[in-house]
Structures are given as structure tokens and as C-alpha cells.
């Protein structure tokens, strides 16, 4: 047995991961089949896997997945742009901080999903109110991380630039923004996972049958094929994990210098 910090080959990591997933599923299957846990509606892992099998050729499901992904990406993009802009301004300029501080504090505590129905009232059904709901949840980690990133720019780094004749705005552009980017990106990463959750939740509430949420809702209502519902949920989860992995990889590529620095 290796301790947590000891290196392990990539192959062994994968094997151990698979053992964990399959093992959990097997124990779960055993618990239900043996009658230890007797609650109607609980899914059998084998049934869920069969459900995924049924989903794969189902084009309505894939339409739903594509809809949710588009909704989520639009929301995340809005949140990233607004969050980086406002957070950057708040980090760089005292006046901007004072102007935005209280509005941010106030809006931050609003549960975004609850704002969804209001948005539908104002702008009607469709993808936009869903995306805006996602954006409302996603903007805060981006905004706060960016603000913190700009503010925490190293004073020696700033002084160095000033001694080379860089003025306030040039320092902002050449030093503060680059050193805040990894923070902003971390904010976007956090927001990405939150956003997918909110996207599906918002669909359950105001989706009008669209997206993964709508798909789950209509199949639960029929109660015909619960395994399909669980399978859809599982696919949504896998989607989330995939997004996280891709963004982590991108982090390594773009901001490797941050990790190099920490060593």
C-alpha cells in the first residue's frame, strides 16, 4: 500500500478507480437484490446501465442533452464576461468597488433558481431565461475570484513595472490582469460545475419540457421507466465530470506557470 503522496502509475490509478465504481455498484446491487433495503423506486445499477443502453439510440434524449449543454454554455459565457469585467474593475479601481460592493452583496444571496420564474414572466419561455438563471448562479465565483486576483497582485511585481516607467493603466494591463487570470479561471471552473447543476434544476422548474431536466420530468410523470430517469441523471453526472476534467487539463496548459511557481 502506498501512502497518499507517493506516486502511482497512471494505469494503476485507472484500475483502482474502476474497482471503486464497479465495487460500489456491486454492493448496491447486492443490498437491493437481497431485500436488505426494500423501497420501491430505488434503482438497480444493472437496470440503470440497461437504461443508459436504451437512452443511447433515443434521439429525443440527445436533443435534450444538446439543449442543456447549449443553455449551460451560454449562461457560463455570460457569467464569465460579466464576472471578469465587474470583478476586474472592482479589484482595480476603488470607485468601481464602492459602486458595485452593495449591489453584489445583495444579488449574491438571491437563490438563482427562484429568480427563474420571474425571468420567464418578464422575457417569456425559452433558452434565454434558463441561461440567465445559470449565469446568475455562475457569475459570483468568477467575479469574486477575479477581484481577489487583481487585488492580490504582488507589490514587488507592481513596483518593478513602475520603475520601468509603466503607469497605472499599463501596470493593470501588463501585470495585474495576467496575474489575476488564473484566479478568474478557477472561478470559471467552479462556476462550470455549479452551472450544470443549475441548468438541470432550472429546467425542472421552468424548462417547459426542454433539456435533460425536462426529459427527466416527463419520464418521471409517466413513471413508466424509472430506470430511464436514473440513466439520464447518470449521463448528466458523467457530463459534469467530463467538463471538470477538460477544464482541469486546460488549467494545466494555460496556467502551468502558477503551479511551477508554487513548487
Amino acid at each position, binding site marked *: 500500500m502506498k501512502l497518499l503522496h507517493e506516486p502511482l502509475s497512471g494505469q494503476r490509478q485507472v484500475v483502482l478507480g474502476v474497482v471503486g465504481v464497479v465495487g460500489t455498484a456491486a454492493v448496491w446491487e447486492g443490498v437491493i437484490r437481497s431485500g436488505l433495503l426494500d423501497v420501491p423506486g430505488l434503482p438497480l445499477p444493472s437496470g440503470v446501465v440497461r437504461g443508459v443502453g436504451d437512452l443511447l439510440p433515443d434521439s429525443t434524449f440527445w436533443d435534450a442533452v444538446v439543449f442543456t449543454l447549449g443553455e449551460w454554455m451560454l449562461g457560463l459565457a455570460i457569467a464569465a464576461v460579466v464576472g471578469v469585467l465587474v470583478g476586474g474593475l472592482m479589484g482595480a479601481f476603488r470607485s468601481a468597488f464602492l459602486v458595485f460592493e452593495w449591489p453584489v452583496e445583495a444579488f449574491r444571496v438571491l437563490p438563482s433558481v427562484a429568480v427563474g420564474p420571474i425571468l420567464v414572466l418578464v422575457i417569456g419561455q425559452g433558452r434565454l431565461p434558463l441561461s440567465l438563471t445559470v449565469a446568475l448562479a455562475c457569475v459570483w465565483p468568477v467575479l469574486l475570484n477575479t477581484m481577489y486576483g487583481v487585488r492580490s497582485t*504582488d507589490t*514587488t511585481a507592481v*513596483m518593478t513595472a513602475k*520603475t*520601468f516607467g509603466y503607469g497605472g493603466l499599463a501596470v493593470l494591463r501588463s501585470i495585474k490582469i495576467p*496575474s489575476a487570470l488564473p484566479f478568474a479561471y478557477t472561478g470559471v471552473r467552479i462556476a462550470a460545475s455549479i452551472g450544470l447543476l443549475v441548468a438541470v434544476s432550472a429546467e425542472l422548474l421552468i424548462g417547459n419540457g426542454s433539456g435533460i431536466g425536462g426529459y427527466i420530468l416527463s419520464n418521471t410523470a409517466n413513471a413508466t421507466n424509472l430506470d430511464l430517469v436514473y440513466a439520464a441523471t447518470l449521463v448528466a453526472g458523467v457530463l459534469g465530470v467530463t467538463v471538470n476534467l477538460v477544464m482541469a487539463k486546460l488549467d494545466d496548459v494555460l496556467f502551468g*506557470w502558477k503551479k*511551477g511557481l508554487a513548487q
Partner: protein
Amino acid sequence: MTEARVTENPVPPTGTSAELLLDGVSRSYGDNLAVRSISAEVPASKISVIVGPSGCGKSTLLRIISGLDEPTAGRVEFEGVPVKGVPEGLAMVFQDYSRSLYPWMRVDKNVAFPIKHLPAKERAERVRFAIDEVGLSGKEKLYPWQMSGGMQQRVAIARALASHPKLLLMDEPYASVDAQTRADLEDLLMRIQAELGITVLVVTHDIDESVYLADRIIVLSAPPSVVAEVIDVDLPRPRDHIATKTDPRFVEIRGHVTRLLRSKEQATSA
């Protein structure tokens, strides 16, 4: 405010022209008087060293000279012009190279940082010259954090050189590297200074280093600091770590500076 020129430390007469003039420079932070009325002349095209104990206001003084901070009293003149804001032709090397170099830029980009406004061709030439000057040719595409501390400080020196400074300020530049690297970097500095004829002002708390590098030593007392003495060092150049440091004149001056710093410490703690 400018009338508050306390001339406790009259500027000693010298033959060389002063590149930099400090006249009664003081800086207080609230009630804490960090620097008390410093007057000194830094001659052109020479190495001057400010030596003094930790916390005596050396970094504060360099910030004022470089225009990053303002004195609460007194004035600074660079080439006869009062310093207001960061003057042209000045470069600074900080002790903390890992914070002063930009970790997202490779070595060549870091070195090119002060001259981004120049045409690409001239910029590339200057970068190559500066990197060559500090002995880092071939390392252009590394990131600073992939290098040893001594190499990083060389990058910082190259970056300063690329800006073609008339005045090079260095704040304890070698306090964070090992002894051998430090000796190498001291020699590197003296070689570059002799080659390019720039004016160098180094701040250090290391007495040996101050005597070894300096044409002129400005000894500061413990805080609130004043100039204890200005010493012109006439040890021959080029200097060498063995020959120079065993020279009886070197030993004598080092002893003198040590006594100055010691007696001031005792005076303030008594």
C-alpha cells in the same frame, strides 16, 4: 516643508560629478521616523553602497530615490533634476527575484519587459546583449521558476540592463543566494559596471560586500537613521575575492565600518 533641511550630515566634497544627490531626505510612517535627514552624493559611473543594519530604512530610501515614494522632508536630485515620479534612465533590482520577475513570461520576455515600446529588431538585439552579458545565453526560453535563485537574479540584472539605465539601484540583490553564487554575482556586477560605465547604487547589510564592491560607502546608523560616515574606497580594480579581501586596506576599512555600525547600535540601545 523644503525649509526643513537639517544639515547634520554635511555632504563631503568630492572631485567627481554627482549623478544623484540626497539632501536632508526624511521619511516617517505616522509617528515612526524611518529615515532621518539623509544627505549624500552618489558619484556618476561608480559603484556606491549604502550599508546599514536591517530596518534602518535602506529600502525606504531606494523607493524614494526611484520615485516610488516621496520623502516627508528633503529632496532628491537625479542628474540635477528634482525627482518627481519615476525618472527616465533608472532601473531597480530587488532582493526578491521570484516576485520581481514575471512567472508567466519566459526569460526573453522578462528581459524585454522594459523595452516593449522599441522596434522589434532593436529590442531583440538588446535582449540578446543583456542575456549574454549575464551569461545566460541559451536559457531564453526557460521560465524563471525553472532556474536556480542565482540564475533568476541574473535575469533580473539582464532585464535592468536591457533598459539601458544610467542609474542602477539594487536592494540587497544577493541576500537570498548562497555564498558562492553571491561572490560570482558580485564580480559580475563589477565587470558589467566597468564595461558599461553606469552609475550603481547598491543597498546591503553585509559589510564585506559593501567594501568589496564600493567606490564609495555610505554608512547608515540604526533607526531613525542618519549617515554615520561616507567612505571613499581606493582599493584597486579589478578586484578579486582573494587578493582584495586579504589587502590590508580592505581589512582596515572593513574594521572601520564594523566599528561604526557597532558603536551606533550600542549608542541607540544604551
